[in-house]
């Protein structure tokens, strides 16, 4: 690496365009929203900047706190489910034959390259009350009913008089299922990277020293995969928390997340200052989560160095 002074012409040539772009089309917009978050709506379209934290105070209203809590709950649950499934999948890929590993990895990552909206739409088709899951369940119901009739219990109507489709869409279940569906690849990748890096002889050493498989998993595999786990948790949790499309399309009236409230302020409710304050709260939470990870990494480094 060389000092910029050694080659100032080249330096400015490469520094100016991206800095200019970042400033004008990213930092300025963010700054505008920040200023807006200290504003007050007067009339239908006008906003005055009062520099009062009223909008932030309003976010503490139980109505909104509940939505924040719900968002955390959804994102947390999504992360937990992704972690469990992701770990199993990462182990399956890591210990698959070497020539099959790239294919498996690609299969897990490919949905990531497919349009988010299309994937969400695909889920709707599966979860609808007249969709595939329910059609499958109905078949199962008829088959079971037939079986019951065959053994002479048909008259008792043990399974109800007719099949009642499960309500799989427009509720909290649908939102979490959708979030898991969308974010699973984010979790698998760092976990796989961590497991792949891990020297197999650690596991062998643990087994050799007399620990069982479960003990080995708990006291060797998990601690060594910790950096991957932490990365996976953060890069799953952060985007899940800010999700808009999934709760919007799959959720019911009571499964709205922060992003949906923000959208409403900017579109139908037309209260931009409050929406701006909510976006900045969401951003602060995001930064906090990332800072936590950085802190953890730093602490770990110092610990290793000591």
């Amino acid at each position, binding site marked *: 690496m060389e000092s910029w002074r050694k080659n100032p012409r080249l330096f400015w040539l*490469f520094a100016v365009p991206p800095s200019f772009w970042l400033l004008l089309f990213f930092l300025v917009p963010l700054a505008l929203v920040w200023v807006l978050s200290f504003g007050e709506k007067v009339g239908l379209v006008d906003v005055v900047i009062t520099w009062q934290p009223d909008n932030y105070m309003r976010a503490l209203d139980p109505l909104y706190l509940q939505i924040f809590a719900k968002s955390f709950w959804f994102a947390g649950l999504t992360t937990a489910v992704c972690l469990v499934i992701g770990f199993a999948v990462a182990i399956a890929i890591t210990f698959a034959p070497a020539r099959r590993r790239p294919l498996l990895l690609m299969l897990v990552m490919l949905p990531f390259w497919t349009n988010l*909206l299309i994937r969400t739409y695909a889920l709707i088709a599966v979860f609808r009350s007249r969709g595939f899951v329910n059609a499958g369940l109905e078949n199962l119901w008829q088959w079971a009913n037939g079986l019951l009739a065959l053994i002479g219990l048909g008259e008792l109507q043990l399974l109800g008089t007719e099949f009642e489709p499960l309500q799989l869409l427009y509720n909290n279940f649908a939102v979490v299922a959708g979030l898991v569906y969308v974010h699973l690849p984010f979790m698998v990748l760092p976990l796989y990277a961590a497991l792949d890096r891990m020297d197999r002889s650690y596991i062998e050493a643990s087994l050799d020293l007399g620990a069982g498989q479960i003990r080995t998993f708990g006291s060797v595999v998990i601690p060594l995969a910790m950096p991957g786990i932490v990365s996976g948790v953060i890069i799953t949790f952060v985007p899940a928390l800010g999700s808009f499309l999934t709760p919007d399309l799959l959720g019911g009236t009571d499964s709205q997340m922060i992003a949906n409230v923000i959208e409403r302020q900017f579109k139908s409710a037309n209260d931009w200052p409050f929406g701006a304050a909510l976006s900045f709260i969401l951003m602060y939470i995001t930064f906090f989560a990332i800072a936590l990870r950085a802190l953890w990494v730093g602490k770990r480094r110092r610990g290793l160095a000591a």
Partner: protein
Amino acid sequence: MIGARKHRVMGPLDYGRRMWVRLSLWATLIFLYAPIVILVAFSFNDSRRNIVWRGFTFKYYEKAWNNDALIEAFTNSLTIALISTVVSVILGMMTAVLLWRFRFPGKAPFEGTVSLPIIVPEICMGVAMMTFFADIGWPRDLPWPLNLGAITIAHISFSFPFVAMVVRARLTHFNPELEEAARDLGASQWQSFRDVLVPYMRPGLLAGGLLAFTLSLDDFVITFFTSGPETVTFPVKVYSMIRFSVTPEVNAASTALIMITIVLTAIALRLQNRT
């Protein structure tokens, strides 16, 4: 002679052959792919209620093709993605080379700011762009393709940091003696950049470009906030169609987009393997 045993003894580290591991892998793959496969399959189903198979048809593709609004949205999306990719690759490459090559005051804050668009939640970026273009009074009634300007700018802002990240990762393995060798053999600074550094970065530029293209084509949230009522991209159009009803036409259009993504990825992989 002892008969060859067909059954292989499972080693303690043969996790890949354990039942629960295999089962969870297959269940996950089915979970990931079943919805997409069903979506694609039923774009060919000759029925409006897309639950029962009623025979093969191309009629929804025909319908989608004749849906002017959908085609316009599709054209818009591709145009935006193309311009956004070109600009993002250039800006991303500049950022990557800058961070890789130079020490300069304010480098750490610059680095942090560049990664910010990757971190910031989409919704926040969306409302920021909406506020920005409203505040500066960005004209809404420009002729095509200038009316796509606001969306394209927003897409570049969140795409180029990704390109920078990918290219920079590749640059960390660059042997600086290669550039010195070019200079030593008489190449000017520009020639050594063009002849040595750019060819070295090419796989990264390609991967970054593909990422930028996909991100742009994929984006709904930020576009949703940035687009005016007159400019509609494919995801925004599909969104309004889904809100309205689920039709095989949407399946057809979605299948087309999935195919485009798969073909592009395949091309990129092919190109990458060649270099």
